[in-house]
């Protein structure tokens, strides 16, 4: 039991952090926010999946991927394809020249469903595809890169190029992918109305539960021997290699795992927001995911979630009132998080917590010393009486 307590939860400190987070997203938000805002928070929390994956990959592994949007997008598009096929049943699309195919295909003069859309008629296949395709894609990229010892800056640039390629492909192939508008008008999941209030609550809680599970799983990975090796690879890769470990396999594994997490986030995004578009795939969203992790603290799983929430709240608040200022602020965040507080909010919290506990300790000490001062007098008075 204590094994799981230490490994999975991360001891007493990890437990408090986790309980606080769970309280916030499972109790405080649903009770205080109206459904529209809660749905918005749910959307932000799906961005927390790639942010958590970047903590594993970048904070612990030292591998900066600027293409987590690719995996987020693959997961999101997988789910969107299934929902779109369900939405475009022959009865719903009777007015099209070819009923039974998604509307954007009809607009682009396609007369039958492309072969790679066919399997997405099955829900089981879709779930498997969301879990397997991004991880398999990550494996191919990772194996090609890490086996040849491409790392650091080069890896970042290549992943960025992959994000660009996928965006151009999705935008360019309108007939197959819905183009720049993405896949829209998703209403039902296996006949169940996704836009109803109850569905929104259910998706929100599923999303939170998945996120918490992934935090637990990630912590389990990080506290295991693999986690220590990952840190060792980040700090002195050659030394780990010379100790007889196959460094590339460890990197490939963590890259695949990060891809899987991001893909789950993408699928939950589609379910909650009701559409998927290339604007969540390209360079800009991918780099924004890095900033979520960086603001939260690149070494803190829970910090990444708070970072995501905070940056997105800021973005919504600012772009509603001062859209001009937002990019300045975002740019300032990038620069200051690198120059001033490289460990993010979690780092600030750790520094500040130290002060807090010191002050707290000081107060208790003074309190105790007063007690010890008064106690003898009591004793004296007792003995006197």
């Amino acid at each position, binding site marked *: 039991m204590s094994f799981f307590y230490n490994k999975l939860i991360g001891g007493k400190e990890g437990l408090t952090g986790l309980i606080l987070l769970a309280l916030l997203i499972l109790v405080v938000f649903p009770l205080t926010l109206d459904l529209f805002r809660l749905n918005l928070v749910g959307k932000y929390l799906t961005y927390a999946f790639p942010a958590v994956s970047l903590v594993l990959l*970048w904070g612990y592994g030292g591998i*900066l991927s*600027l293409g987590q949007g690719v995996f987020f997008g693959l997961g999101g598009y997988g789910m969107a394809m299934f929902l779109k096929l369900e939405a475009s049943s022959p009865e719903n699309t009777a007015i099209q020249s070819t009923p039974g195919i998604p509307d954007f295909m009809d607009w682009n003069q396609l007369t039958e469903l492309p072969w790679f859309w066919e399997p997405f008629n099955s829900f089981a296949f879709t779930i498997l595809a969301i879990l397997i395709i991004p991880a398999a894609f990550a494996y191919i990229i990772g194996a*090609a*890169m890490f086996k*040849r*010892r*491409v790392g*650091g*800056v*080069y890896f*970042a*640039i*290549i992943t*960025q*190029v*992959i994000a*660009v*390629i996928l965006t*151009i*492909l999705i*935008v*360019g192939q309108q007939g197959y992918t819905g183009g720049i508008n993405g896949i829209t008008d998703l209403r039902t999941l296996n006949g169940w109305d996704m836009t109803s209030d109850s569905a929104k609550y259910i998706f929100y809680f599923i999303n939170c539960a998945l996120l918490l599970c992934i935090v637990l799983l990630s912590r389990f990975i990080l506290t295991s021997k693999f986690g220590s090796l990952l840190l060792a690879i980040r700090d002195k890769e050659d030394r780990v290699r010379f100790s007889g470990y196959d460094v590339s396999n460890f990197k490939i594994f963590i890259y695949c795992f990060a891809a899987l997490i991001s893909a789950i986030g993408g699928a939950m995004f589609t379910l909650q927001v009701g559409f998927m578009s290339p604007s969540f795939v390209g*360079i800009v969203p991918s*780099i924004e995911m*890095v*900033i979520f992790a*960086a603001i939260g603290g690149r070494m803190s799983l829970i910090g990444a979630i708070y970072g995501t929430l905070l940056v997105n709240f800021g973005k919504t608040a600012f772009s509603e009132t001062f859209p*001009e200022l937002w*990019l*300045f602020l*975002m*740019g*300032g*965040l*990038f*620069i200051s*998080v*690198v*120059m001033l507080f*490289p460990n993010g909010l979690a780092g600030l919290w750790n520094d500040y917590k130290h002060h807090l506990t010191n002050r707290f300790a000081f107060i208790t000490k003074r309190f105790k010393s007063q007690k010890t001062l008064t106690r003898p007098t009591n004793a004296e008075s007792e003995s006197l009486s």
Partner: protein
Amino acid sequence: MLGGYTYGELGSILAMQGFAGFSLFSVLLLMALGLAIIFGQMGVINMAHGEFMAAGAYTTYLIATLTEQYFPAFMPYYFVFAIVVAFFVAGALGYLAEFALIRHLYKRPLDTLLATWGLSLIMQQSYRSIFGAREVSPTLPEWLLGSYQPTDTIDIPLNGMFVLVLTAVVTFAVFYLMFKSRWGLRVRATTQNRVMSGAVGINTNKVDRYTFALGCGIAGIAGAAFTTIASTGPTTGTLYIVDTFMVVVFGGAASLFGTIASAFSIAQAQSILEFFISGSMAKVYTLVTLVLILMFKPEGLFASKVRR
């Protein structure tokens, strides 16, 4: 056969498409030269490189507008003047950026990437606030307009030829600076062994600052040249940044010659493909091919033979 074209027409298409490739090549090379110095020689990932280019383009636009309004007689000559000013404006901005930001981050290359991305966001928004969100383009001097027609079917735009010549001049200047001048010697010494260079009396901080400024200045020239081909908007820089990085990485980061070769092959491949398939797919095929080649040959086309 031949899709209904005669051999003569095909030849003309090849020549014109080839020249379009040359235009793309010169823009890519001009941008990549600055980046090859900053990224290849100094190892700094400057994501704001495109915005320094935009700084050059906006400088040209400003000078064009001012000349048009106050010194109309100067119009035919302003462009040469604008190129020089664009170089110094972008260079000065680069000097400032190095001083304020980058010199603190030499030991953390991945963090430089994030910081310069932040810088690029700020610069983009500044352009939007100052010049507006609409794309602008300067009034070009007469001698840059029109085209050269060696035969009836071939039509080669003059602005493309001008950019090509400019690129050649800048490339030779960079080669001379890097490999023949005392200053280039200092730069190369600093990149090879910073501590040792410091020990023999080279002021490495100063070398870094001027190298970065030079790279940004060349981006400024690229921006000035860019105005003859396309209009400038606040996000112009971002459109080209990934391509430019690919050029430098594909060429082999530390090799200037590799940068030229890779800019040439990427530009030609893309513009010839563009004739047969849509522009977006041409770009996809080119980039996928590049990524695949880099997977098998991660050090790029011309790797410097340095033992690490």
